[in-house]
């Protein structure tokens, strides 16, 4: 059920959105998790997905990333239908995924973590080195710890690594699942900067967050999810964190 309160001009009217999710349903055993979620993300756009715990935000990202497959509905990326493709194909197509618990490879070094994603055909050594150096520039702490095992990093450092790792794929969109959860305020602003860097590089971001001010600051548009459905959709600029509608979908 696609619910858009008012038509919003997301991207140029006559171009396809980068990512279009249309009425997807997912099940976990017998539980019906997503009841027809629809949303869109334009090229280079930062879009937010907000809602309480357990409403289906992470599941939506997983469905897009190919980690779970919707039993009904469509997911289109750059115009092609991807709902049935396995996640490694989607990664190659340009969908980056940063999961809620980071899930970096604990027994691989920082450098090896970064290398997992991009050892693919057709990429020459120079380009690989370039990408790694770029990661070290944006995340200096990773450069320091390049030979340390991922499991020995702090929570914030692991989050940096998880994002950098996704960036090694040179993705067109990054799915970020609650990146600031459990982080100190200093790291939270670092995440904000990273999202801004991505936006400037024309990488789209679909951001799931509980931190409303951050989300409203970083995103152009936000969707509100409740009980597995998109219930509201607005431009971030027209919302305040204290608005009634925000409290309705995120309050206790």
């Amino acid at each position, binding site marked *: 059920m696609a619910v858009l309160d008012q038509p919003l001009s997301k991207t140029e009217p006559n171009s396809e959105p980068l990512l279009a999710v249309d009425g997807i349903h997912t099940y976990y055993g017998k539980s019906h998790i997503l009841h027809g979620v629809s949303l869109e993300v334009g090229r280079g756009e930062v879009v937010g997905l907000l809602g309480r715990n357990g409403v289906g935000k992470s599941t939506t990202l997983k469905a897009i990333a*190919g*980690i779970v497959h919707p039993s009904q509905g469509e997911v289109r990326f750059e115009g092609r239908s991807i709902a049935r493709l396995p996640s*490694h194909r989607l990664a190659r197509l340009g969908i980056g995924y940063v*999961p809620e618990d980071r899930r*970096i490879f604990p027994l691989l070094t920082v450098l*090896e973590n970064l290398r*997992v994603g991009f*050892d693919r055909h057709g990429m020459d050594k120079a380009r690989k080195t370039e990408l790694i150096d770029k990661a070290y520039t944006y995340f200096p702490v990773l450069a320091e710890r390049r030979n340390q095992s991922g499991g020995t990093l702090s929570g914030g450092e692991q989050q940096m690594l998880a994002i950098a790792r996704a960036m090694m*794929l040179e993705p067109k969109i990054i799915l970020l699942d609650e990146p600031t959860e459990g982080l100190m305020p200093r790291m939270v602003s670092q995440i904000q900067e990273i999202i801004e860097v991505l936006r400037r590089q024309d990488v789209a971001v679909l951001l799931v967050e509980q931190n409303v001010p951050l989300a409203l600051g970083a995103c152009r548009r936000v969707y509100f999810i409740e009980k597995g459905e998109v219930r509201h959709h607005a431009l971030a600029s027209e919302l305040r964190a204290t608005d009634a509608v925000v409290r309705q979908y995120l309050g206790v």
Partner: protein
Amino acid sequence: MGNAIDQILIQTINGVVTGMILALVSSGLTLIFGIMDVVNFAHGELFMLGAYVGVLTLAVTGNFWLALISASLLIALLGAAIYLVTLRPLIGRDPLTTILATFGISLVLQNYALWQFGPVSRKISEPIGGHFTLFYLDYPWYRVAVALLSAAIIGGFWLFLKFGTWGIWIRATTQDRVMAQAMGVPVPWVLTGVFAIGSGMAAASGVLFGPFGGVDPTMGLNWILRAFIVVVVGGMGSLGGSIAAAIFISLLEAYASLWVSPSQAVIVSFVVLIVTLLVRPTGLFVATPK
């Protein structure tokens, strides 16, 4: 006859030699378990078929090294085929089913060998002849060569895991299969590849062991049992653990055979297993109990 010290030293070398072969067989088994949670009952039969391919290649070409390589490659391919046909459809199902499927495969392969080659044992002649004098014995050079070769293969594999592209993919898949796939690692192919590599290693062990005891369709049974013990004692999924456990158990068995017959010496490995299960079920040689 030499004195006790000499005998013990000779058994030490014997133990290390057998231990290295056992380590090679067990590495494949523990790798397969570590990455895809599959207990490969058919591993012993892959070992056995590798030995037979070695026999055949040797008969045709007369070259032991060619036999070793061809056996490893062919059985690796067989392993990949087995994985694709019978194990891939079982992904996500109850682990019981993979144990049963590989058990069924072991039956099929064993009887195939029995049918094709007959029950009479065949011989692979040693590629490196000659002996050197070790205390009071003429100790065959070949045994030393086997230990070194096994170590080389395992070492090469370890390097591959540490530094190669595929090595990183394999390690990532072992640690977090879902995220590896989300990072673009072609996990289905990695799993097939690992099963193939494990099979190839088993086959290589079979060829290396061939000159020791003769090749017959039931040779896999002995080794699979010991290999399972090694994998449990060494910690399932731990490459280093299996190697240490393999040598440890083989040494103990070698010493035991100074007093009892070889078929009874095997009880030693059983005892080690029971002790491990009672004291440290996750593996005697694992650094920290999980």
